[in-house]
């Protein structure tokens, strides 16, 4: 879900995805960088992402990933589940108000 969310705004290459995750999580998700690439590969195999090669401004080839329609739908479904789950946990963790009779 983290990687799908990072690609929601626009297609990006691996390094930019990692930067986006780090930036949007305020540094909380400072993942080992190499672990993101197998995840991208798995999401592409599951047809949640598509990818193609592009030339970088300095001429290096880089793989750019984009959400597919299936990926956008999956992200929306996961987001709904997460909101429900986090609301439930928040309700549980909120200190109950003591009732005085």
């Amino acid at each position: 879900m983290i990687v799908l969310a990072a690609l929601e705004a626009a297609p990006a290459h691996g390094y930019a995805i990692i930067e986006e995750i780090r930036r949007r999580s305020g540094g909380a998700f400072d993942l080992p960088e190499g672990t993101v690439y197998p995840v991208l590969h798995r999401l592409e195999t599951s047809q949640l992402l598509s990818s193609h090669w592009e030339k970088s401004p300095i001429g290096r080839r880089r793989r750019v990933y984009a959400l597919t329609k299936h990926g956008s739908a999956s992200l929306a479904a996961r987001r709904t589940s997460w909101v429900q789950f986090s609301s439930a946990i928040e309700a549980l963790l909120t200190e109950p108000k003591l009732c005085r009779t």
Partner: protein
Amino acid sequence: MSHLIANYLEQLAHELSFDRSLSRRVCEEVEDHLRQSAERHSDGDTIEAERRAIELFGPTKIIAAQFAATSLLKRSRAVGPIVVLIVLGVFAAMKARVAWYAATGWTTSEPARFPDIGVIAYAFDRYAFYLALMTGLCGWVYAFRMQSGALDKTRLQRSFMLSAAAGAALIGSVLADIILTALRLSGVGWSTSHLIPIASVGIEVALVGALIARIHAVTSLVATATLRFDL
């Protein structure tokens, strides 16, 4: 420029050598990442910047193991449709031979010589073929339903067992076809027109050979990768 990144990529390529196309793609992608990362961390010391980029990226073995799980699943899933296509190819060759017998006026029932062997071989051929088709389809569905993510070795083994069972049944069916064709052709004098049924049996044998080679290649790859990465 130091050789740290080049050495790292060489090591990664070695770890991913079980899947050469994946290895090429990943190494090119990782090289771009490491160069960007090194440029970002560079303050004049190239070696230190490359070392830092590699450190942030992580050990090659761990990364390759994560790629291996997806790659093996993808390749294992691809075996199912190949088995079914080959079974259908054998069926087409069989049907073409029977159509040729009918068109040239040969009897399409059991061969005239050794009728008992012909009857047994014909029944064996039919049931072995149905078994190959059914187990092939089951293997395809089973492999397709395997979840992405962590590699489930038990499910993978079951999927291969189904493919292997389909392959074994198909070998039986093709052997029965060879016997039936030999019985049919041995009863009459040699003619160049015999080359047609012989060629159709040859196609069946070639298809079965291709299937065995494919299953062997994928199982060897899975065995190598699971041993290397302790999956």
